[in-house]
């Protein structure tokens, strides 16, 4: 790269980040559109009449008039293509329709449930990273025993299914020791066990790649150079190696958001927490189309946004990639 173009490096860099964010956002919108479309049509393949789902299932024993009314009310008498067009039209106005099972606007349900799930997933992500950094920076390249032991711990952690870990944590820390409340969605104490149950397997995954990357980085010439300057081992690890070592883990965090949301479904059920995961599980079972599509969209949006943030974070940490478009 020519040196001249870097005369205003920081400004240029921010501008590039912004351009990239815009570009990615546009892509994200397209992805969301595709998600909405896919879910919309796929869910219309679901067996059973959606009107019955609206009216509390077939056991609601609705009369012919109420069915006709609900059919009109929800536009279910129109051809699928028209319904789709109407759906998209409303979607553009931020209207996701009414939940069949809750009789609430889907947006309201999302507004009520999202925070709990975001809180859960992001505290789990943060906790996972904390564990990863503590474990890897302290143990990477520290001799065979320490390394293998830590490596075993990571592999084991990565092999733990969320639900099993959740049940074990419940049994030990809530039922047995009673350190934490077994259920609920209020206050940090109710957040601890579910977040730990989500964080530990994730930490295992991220730690595996981070350790590998850290050990590779510690063998890089620039680390040796840093040592030749008289830097201590700790300083080398934190100032030089860490920044490189977290990069694969950060890439993995994009995937992790998806895994966390998947895990949140199960964890929210086990810990009787409110949240999008449990809501989705219920919506799917109740054949609540608008809510299912709404939550899928919300999840996809979180995923898309998180990935943009992670992408930018990655670029911030490793500006070398900036010229290339991923």
């Amino acid at each position: 790269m020519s040196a001249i173009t870097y005369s205003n490096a920081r400004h240029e860099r921010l501008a590039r980040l912004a351009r990239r964010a815009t570009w990615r956002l546009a892509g994200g919108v397209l992805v969301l559109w595709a998600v909405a479309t896919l879910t919309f049509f796929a869910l219309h393949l679901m067996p059973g009449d959606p009107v019955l789902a609206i009216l509390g299932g077939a056991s609601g024993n609705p009369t012919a008039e109420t069915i006709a009314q609900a059919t009109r009310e929800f536009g279910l008498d129109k051809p699928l293509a028209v319904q789709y067009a109407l759906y998209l039209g409303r979607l553009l106005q931020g209207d996701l329709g009414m939940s069949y099972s809750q009789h609430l606007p889907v947006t309201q349900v999302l507004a009520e449930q999202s925070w709990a799930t975001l809180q859960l997933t992001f505290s789990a992500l943060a906790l996972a990273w904390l564990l990863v950094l503590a474990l890897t920076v302290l143990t990477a390249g520290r001799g065979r025993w320490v390394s293998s032991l830590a490596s075993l711990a990571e592999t084991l952690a990565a092999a733990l299914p969320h639900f099993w870990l959740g049940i074990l944590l419940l049994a030990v820390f809530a039922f047995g020791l009673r350190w934490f409340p077994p259920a609920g969605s209020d206050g940090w104490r109710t957040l601890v066990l579910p977040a730990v149950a989500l964080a530990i397997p994730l930490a295992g995954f991220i730690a595996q790649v981070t350790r590998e990357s850290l050990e590779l980085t510690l063998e890089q010439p620039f680390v040796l150079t840093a040592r030749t300057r008289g830097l201590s081992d700790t300083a080398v690890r934190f100032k030089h190696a860490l920044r490189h070592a977290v990069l694969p883990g950060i890439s993995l965090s994009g995937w992790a958001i998806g895994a966390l949301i998947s895990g949140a479904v199960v964890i929210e059920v086990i810990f009787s927490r409110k949240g999008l995961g449990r809501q989705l599980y219920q919506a799917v079972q109740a054949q609540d189309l608008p809510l299912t599509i709404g939550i899928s969209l919300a999840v996809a949006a979180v995923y898309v946004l998180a990935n943009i943030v992670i992408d930018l974070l990655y670029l911030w940490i490793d500006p070398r990639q900036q010229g290339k478009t991923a």
Partner: protein
Amino acid sequence: MSELTFETTLPAVRVQRTASRLRPGPLLAVTFLAFLIIAALAPQLFAHSDPLAIVPHDAFHPPGWAHWFGTDQSGRDIFSRVIYGTRQSLFIGLAATALAMGIAIVLGLLGGLGGAYLDRGVGWLLEILFAFPSLVLALLFVAIFGSGVGPLIVATGLGGAPGYARMVRGQVLAVRNAGYIEAAVALGHPTRRIILRQLLPNAMRPLIVTLTMGVGQAIVWASALSFLGLGAPPPAPEWGTMLSMGRDFVANAWWLTFFPGLFIVLTTLSTTVAGRYLQQRLEGRLS
């Protein structure tokens, strides 16, 4: 003149580890996997009681000599159930991974070999699939097609496919740009021969490792669905279903959930360790 290679840039001169020697970790993992495979093929070798035999007055025996893993709420021997469950759990894991890999290979090859437009299309499709977290995708799938072992396999497979597809595509692109492919072109080999003899085998090779590790993860995801009541119907001794059925009794009888879960963990752990060992061996030989 001998040409002992000695890296000049590395600070720590690493004495090359002998990869061919089986260290205790991989050894244990491979042994356990072998045990699982035998258990799946011939469970009666290990478990002597009928996994479905209900003995109500024997319910909730804690682990002991008579029942190594205790008995469940129906008095069934949990050890037998776990052993007999190996077949179904492994089958689900293998089938789901195979399906995921099948989809992934098709998508990955289309993306990697199909030219710029197709590649972009596949890229988009993957991006969209990625926006559905695997369990969400599986939930939607089960919602549409119902629950049971078949849908469970397909749902788990679908959930894993985009990740593998991205990997296959990456592999194909990497191998496509490898020196030996250029060398083969320069030698004058026809394109078809290069794809079949060099590109595909080399691109697929690392996937063996992924596949090994993937089976463990597939078992975890499948059991998550079973746990939510969307998987193998009871009384099938499927590990996730057993866990799900036992979870009400966590406070009274921990062994109902502990042992099936333990087997899931051990299986995943073993596939990971074995896969990584395989990877080291392949890399040691090939890179």
